[in-house]
C-alpha cells in the first residue's frame, strides 16, 4: 500500500482525534482539512519506512498549535485553567459534567497526550515522538490530565454516573 492510500485510511482516526481535541465538529473537520492539505504538500518530506501515523499526527499537532496561536485572543479553550487542585470544591467539579467540556478545559498540551494515549492507543514513546517532547513529559502530562479530568468528572462522591454528551 502506498502513502496516499495509507493516508486516506488514517483520515477517520484524524477526525476522531480532532473531534476530541477541539470539541466542535465543524472546527474539527476544518483541522482535519488543514492537516491533510499540509500533509499532502509535505508528503515528500515523510521518510519512507517510518511511522506514517505518527508523522501525520505530528502534522496535525503543528497545524493545531499554529491555529490556536493565530486565534488565541478569542479562543476560550486555550485559556489556562487554574489548577483544579487549588480550587477543587465540589461545586466547581459538578459544574462540568460532560466529557466534551471537561476535555476542553484541560490545558492543550495535556489534552493531546491523553487523547493520543487513550484514543489512538499510541505507546508513550510514540506520543513523545509525535509531539516532540521527552517521554518523562508525556508521563507527567498524562498523569496530570487524568487527575484533572477525574476531578472534573467525578468531583463529588455523589456523581458516580458520568454523563457523556457527544
Amino acid at each position: 500500500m502506498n502513502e496516499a492510500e495509507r493516508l486516506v485510511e488514517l483520515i477517520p482516526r484524524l477526525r476522531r482525534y480532532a473531534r476530541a481535541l477541539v470539541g466542535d465538529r465543524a472546527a474539527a473537520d476544518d483541522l482535519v482539512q488543514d492537516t491533510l492539505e499540509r500533509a499532502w504538500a509535505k508528503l515528500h518530506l515523510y521518510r519512507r519506512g517510518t511511522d506514517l501515523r505518527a508523522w501525520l499526527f505530528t502534522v496535525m499537532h503543528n497545524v493545531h498549535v499554529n491555529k490556536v496561536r493565530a486565534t488565541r485572543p478569542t479562543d476560550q479553550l486555550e485559556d489556562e485553567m487554574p489548577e483544579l487542585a487549588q480550587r477543587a470544591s465540589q461545586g466547581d467539579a459538578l459544574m462540568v459534567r460532560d466529557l466534551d467540556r471537561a476535555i476542553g478545559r484541560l490545558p492543550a498540551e495535556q489534552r493531546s497526550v491523553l487523547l493520543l494515549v487513550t484514543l489512538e492507543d499510541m505507546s508513550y514513546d510514540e506520543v513523545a515522538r509525535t509531539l516532540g517532547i521527552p517521554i518523562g513529559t508525556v508521563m507527567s502530562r498524562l498523569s496530570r490530565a487524568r487527575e484533572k479530568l477525574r476531578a472534573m468528572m467525578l468531583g463529588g462522591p455523589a456523581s458516580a454516573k458520568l454523563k457523556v454528551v457527544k
Partner: protein
Amino acid sequence: MSDDPQITNSELQAYADGRLGEERSRAVEAWLAARPDDAERIAAYRRLGEELRRAYDPVLDEPLPDWLGGGRAPRPRWHGFARIAGWVVLGAAIGVVAGWEVRDARPIAASRADPGETMAHRAAVAHAVYSPEVRHPVEVGADQEAHLVRWLSKRLGASLKVPHLADLGYSLVGGRLLPGDRGPVAQFMYQDTKGQRLTLYVRVNADDSRETAFRFAQEHGVGVFYWLDGKLGYALSGELDRNELLRVATAVYRQLNP
C-alpha cells in the same frame, strides 16, 4: 500487603492503560490493594478511558464529509483542498497513484538523477486525477485567463504563458495550482470538442541552466512529453497516441519559444 516503594507514577499510568508487564502489574496490584484511595483513582482513570473511547470512537464510522468526496460542492474556502482530497480518494480508489507506485518501484536516487522524470511522473498523476473531473476540472476557468496567468505566475515566481491550441482543436479549460516536489506547480487543462483532455504541467526548475529535448514517458495509459527549458519545466500529458501528443507538444514548445 506488600508495600513496594519502587512503584512509580509512570507505572501507575501504564497499569491504568493495561500496558504494564505481568510481573509489574502484580506488584502494582499488591500496592493498590493496600491503598483503596489510589485503587479507586486508577479505576477511575480506566473508566475515563472507556468513556472517552465510547464518546469518540463513533467518529470512526461516520461517513466522510462532502469535501472528501461527498455530494455537495465544497465550501469555497476549501476549493483547492477539495481537489487535493479528491486526488487522494480517487487515486486510492482507482489505483492510479502512478507517481507513488513508480517511486516504490525505483530507487529514489535514480529518479533524482533525472528531475525531468520525476516531473513527468507527477504530471501523469495530476493528469489522471484531474482530467476526468466533470464538475471541477480546474480552479480558475478560461473565462478568467488573465487572472489565471497572473495568479499562477505569482505563485510560481515566474512569468508563465498559456499556449493557445485552438489551431490543433484544443481549447483552454482553465488551470489550477498544485503542490509539486519543491513548491507550487501550475496545471493548464485543454479539451477538444469530443471532451478529450490534455494537461500542461509547469514547474520551476531547481537549476535554470538546463535544457533538454523532448522526452516521452507513459504511465497507466497516460502519455507524457516533457522537457526542461531554462527556468521552467514542462510536461504535456494526455491519453492520446504518441504522435498526436508530440504534435501538440511541438506546438506548445513553439508558442513558448517564438
